[in-house]
């Protein structure tokens, strides 16, 4: 069953939480709604659940218009951030609750609840009360309760944010496993990009109630459609700077400084100023035709990575470099980038701009460097 959102808007008093959202979520897909807090991702989920009713627009589950249908009747399963397990009921009764509401006979409800408990691996905890469970176990109960009535859609509202780091990793794989085992359409709200990128089939990145980009996780990371997407994704954050064209049409300098930049790929010719984005891991050390030259002002080693910050004119550039190198603060250093890893954005609208490759000669050189 596909889910269609059509021109969906939600206005609270004076703030627009969701603005004319139109998209389709395909059957069996796991879609992440990602974005900073206040971007409207949770509101979107509440609209899908029926707990909120939209100001305008429509929601279709398959062919059925559910826009005005109450949450009780939508046949959805939902996992809340706080799990919202009924504290007075045992685990088994919590999982049975949706079935009891559907007037499923007690015997059958119990059997189905137990089966679901096995699927989420809490079969041994059935008699406990939620208060006696750990965060991860509560999470599993919440998932079982959401799935036991065989809903059309599973909605997850920041389900991992109350768990500690290691458990979060485990549970997100669990959610993916369970989702694929049942083949249910799932929508997952998170502010954690790693979560979104790691488990979803498709990511919708939202800001100010508008979907900025929806695409497969890798695609979103590799080809951000605008500057916001580029800056939101990635850790360490992408290097962003403004470039201004010099009197020579293929030579650009950093805005606010005289620093000339040797670009391996150029923005469209008619742009006077343009925003340049390069991810820290796409920069590498080179002495031939370097893009940036400057002085290392900061070195940080985290696990297998070494992150440096380099002063280039008036800006600093972050780069992940080979940890084998012996670097010191104050060293002169130079960095290059492959032409395909350069992102240009419109200086006002932030939209992604197409690249212009330089002549073959330039290419050859960088390729040599790449293999050196």
């Amino acid at each position, binding site marked *: 069953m596909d889910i269609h959102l059509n021109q969906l808007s939600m206005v609270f008093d004076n703030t627009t939480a969701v603005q004319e959202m139109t998209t389709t979520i395909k059957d069996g897909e796991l879609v992440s709604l990602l974005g900073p807090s206040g971007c409207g991702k949770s509101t979107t989920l509440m609209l899908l*659940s029926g707990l909120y009713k939209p100001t305008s627009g429509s929601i279709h589950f398959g062919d059925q218009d559910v826009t005005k249908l109450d949450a*009780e009747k939508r046949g959805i399963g*939902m996992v*809340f951030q*706080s799990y919202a397990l009924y504290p007075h009921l045992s685990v088994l009764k919590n999982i049975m*609750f949706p079935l009891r509401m*559907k007037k499923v006979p007690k015997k059958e409800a119990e059997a189905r609840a137990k089966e679901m408990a096995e699927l989420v691996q809490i079969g041994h905890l059935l008699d406990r009360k939620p208060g006696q469970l750990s965060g991860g176990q509560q999470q599993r109960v919440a998932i079982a309760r959401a799935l036991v009535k065989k809903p059309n859609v599973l909605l997850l509202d920041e389900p991992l944010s109350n768990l500690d780091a290691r458990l979060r990793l485990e549970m997100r794989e669990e959610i993916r496993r369970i989702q694929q085992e049942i083949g249910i359409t799932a929508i997952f709200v998170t502010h954690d990009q790693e979560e979104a990128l790691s488990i979803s089939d498709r990511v919708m990145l939202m800001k100010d109630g508008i979907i900025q980009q929806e695409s497969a996780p890798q695609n979103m990371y590799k080809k951000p459609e605008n500057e916001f997407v580029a800056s939101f994704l990635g850790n360490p954050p992408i290097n962003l700077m403004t470039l201004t064209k010099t009197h020579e049409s293929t030579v650009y300098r950093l805005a606010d400084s005289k620093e000339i930049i040797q670009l391996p790929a150029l923005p469209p010719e008619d742009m006077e100023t343009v925003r340049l984005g390069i991810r820290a891991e796409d920069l590498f050390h080179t002495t031939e035709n370097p893009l940036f030259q400057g002085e290392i002002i900061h070195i940080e080693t985290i696990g297998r990575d070494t992150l440096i910050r380099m002063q280039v004119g008036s800006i600093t550039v972050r780069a992940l470099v080979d940890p084998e190198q012996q670097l010191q603060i104050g060293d002169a250093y130079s960095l290059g980038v492959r032409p395909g890893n350069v992102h240009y954005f419109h200086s006002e609208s932030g939209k992604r701009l197409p690249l212009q490759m330089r002549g073959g000669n330039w290419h050859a050189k960088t390729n040599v460097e790449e293999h050196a």
Partner: protein
Amino acid sequence: MQKPTWKSTLKGYLYLLPALLILVVFSIYPIIKSFLMSFYTDYDFFSDTVNAYGLENFTKLFQDPNFITALKNTGIFVIGVVPLSIIISLAIAVLLNSKIKLSGFFRTIYFLPFVTSVVAVAIVWSWIFHSDYGLLNYILGLFGVDPIDWLTSPTYAMPALIILSIWKGLGFNIIIFLAGLQNIGNQYYLAAKVDGASAWNRFKSITLPLLSPTMFFVSIISIINAFKVFDEIFALFNGRPGPANSALTVVYYVYQKFYEEWEFGLATAAAFVLFLIIFLFTIIQLIVGKKFVHYN
């Protein structure tokens, strides 16, 4: 926490002393004294000398038809007031807790009876209950009900008292229920909605169980208060226990014996019996409560 030392203990007791003094003088001592008094069988209150102790007061008590009437009336009163009062105040609390306009205003309105003097309330109600000019009979008249002698007929005196007491107690119960309702996280209702629970099912499966500690508290307080009913009777029936003793309750009986007939032994014995009854009910409630009350 530090270990208590002699010095800190003494200091603590010093702080407790003022309240403790008042409690001992006006509560603890009278309780003990009246308990002892119930065993005085030959007592000269002019010289405060007790000539004989015994259980005679208790046997006399249960032979007194008035005391039996008082017990019966008290029972009817408790059964008539407590469940209805709890149900009505819970219903109003649920309504006030939902998002309605002017809910603060309504909260004040419902709380007013609780803080108003019983005498003033009783005067207003004795007018409402008036058989010829009363508001209640007027409204009943609209539905074709003949005028009822609320305050002068032995049949209707108790119902009138029950109505007044329910109304009077609503405010307190509503405030307590509201506090309890506000303690129930909204997420449970959202989850229950998603789980397909109708409004009634949400009330039954979420509100009631999660409100059970409050319910428990309110029911214990209500039952104790109902057993102790006195002022309302005194004010509503102008210092009489209703027509033909129809609103004579145990506390009223105690009052009659003590202040009107100077039968101190009988009065304190009746008070002690009432204490035992309330104690028994509270114990039963504690046992039943353990099974049904859910604490987080």
